[in-house]
């Protein structure tokens, strides 16, 4: 199992900034990961896709009034919505990373297994980090 902690950057990025720059940032984040892990572009593709689809994910998980919030830590967001938001991003990221790495229908079962396990593990690690650095008294 290999948690992708760097996805935290895409999760905590502010909602009210320009998405164009966010997609570029997402691409370079994934690209650096690809260079460091010598993968064939799976991290770049997943990060770009997550950054492109994040407005839809936000709308789906935080509800129709998602524009009222500027960050996922804004007050007023239900804990269940916040968890859903984290989980969708992590799951989407893992599906793309594993699918692109294996790139074959024959390995569907392995892709699903790795996606689920890595998503759970990444989710636990990310929640822990967020709680660790939480500024709540």
């Amino acid at each position: 199992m290999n948690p992708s902690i760097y996805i935290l950057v895409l999760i905590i990025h502010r909602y009210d900034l320009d998405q164009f720059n966010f997609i570029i940032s997402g691409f370079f984040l994934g690209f650096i990961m690809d260079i460091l892990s010598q993968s064939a572009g799976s991290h770049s593709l997943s990060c770009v896709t997550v950054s492109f689809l994040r407005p839809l994910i936000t709308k789906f998980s935080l509800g129709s009034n998602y524009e009222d919030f500027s960050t996922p830590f804004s007050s007023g967001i239900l804990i269940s919505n916040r968890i859903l938001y984290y989980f969708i991003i992590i799951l989407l990221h893992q599906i793309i990373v594993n699918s692109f790495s294996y790139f074959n229908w024959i390995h569907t079962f392995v892709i699903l297994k790795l996606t689920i396990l890595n998503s759970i593990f990444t989710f636990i690690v990310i929640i822990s980090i967020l709680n660790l650095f939480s500024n709540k008294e």
Partner: protein
Amino acid sequence: MQWLLGFLLRYKNLFLYLFFVISIIFFSYYQSEYHKSKIFKASIFINGKTSEPLKKLTSYFKLKKINTRLLEENLYLKSLIIEKKYKSNFKDEIKETPFSLIQGQVVKNDISSSRNIIIINRGSSDMIESEMGVIGSIGIVGIVNQTTEKFSSVLSILHKDIKINAKHKKTNAFGSLFWEGNDPDKVKLSDISIINKIDIGDTIVTGGMSTYFPEGIPIGKVIKVENDERYYLLDVLLFNNMTNLDNVYFLKNKNKSEIKSLYR
């Protein structure tokens, strides 16, 4: 231009995303051999699927060109057949066949009268002369009667006044081929001596005893055998369907004038 700019700006995020996705695919193509082979296979599949209907569409518009090319190919193959048959008659020495082919297309074809004439879109400007033999795709058609600059009239084998030298392929027995004026698919072959054995289904070919046709061009097959104790009278079913002629070939005999001069 304004509209295009507005469109690009409106969907700039989508275009940026697609640009990155394509860049990543290129990156993975050069980075990993595994991805390279997979992407290559996928591209072949997509290419095949998209180019198939496109090719079907474009091939429809190319039909005329293809048809012309096939006619040229037919012309070449027919001339090869004639040359081969001619050379097989001269085993000891290599001789060039005196016959060359010119392709033409039927403009008008009559079968209703007893003296039928075919008009073909090749004339004196295409080196067509009178008394040239004309063959179709699988058999003989007739003999050139008159020519203008662009067209020529051909006496069809379905013409009562025409007699063509023909022979029984198996026995090489010669006779005269003529049309009685009834069925457009049947002709008669007479003057073959009964000492030759002829069966129904045997092939009749040109005799090569005239300047019109080389030896061995198929004419038809025997469907009825009659005799008058001395000569056969055969009913021959033509190979060529004379009612739907389209592409034909003129046979130009280089030795025609030389042979003709001996008759004078």
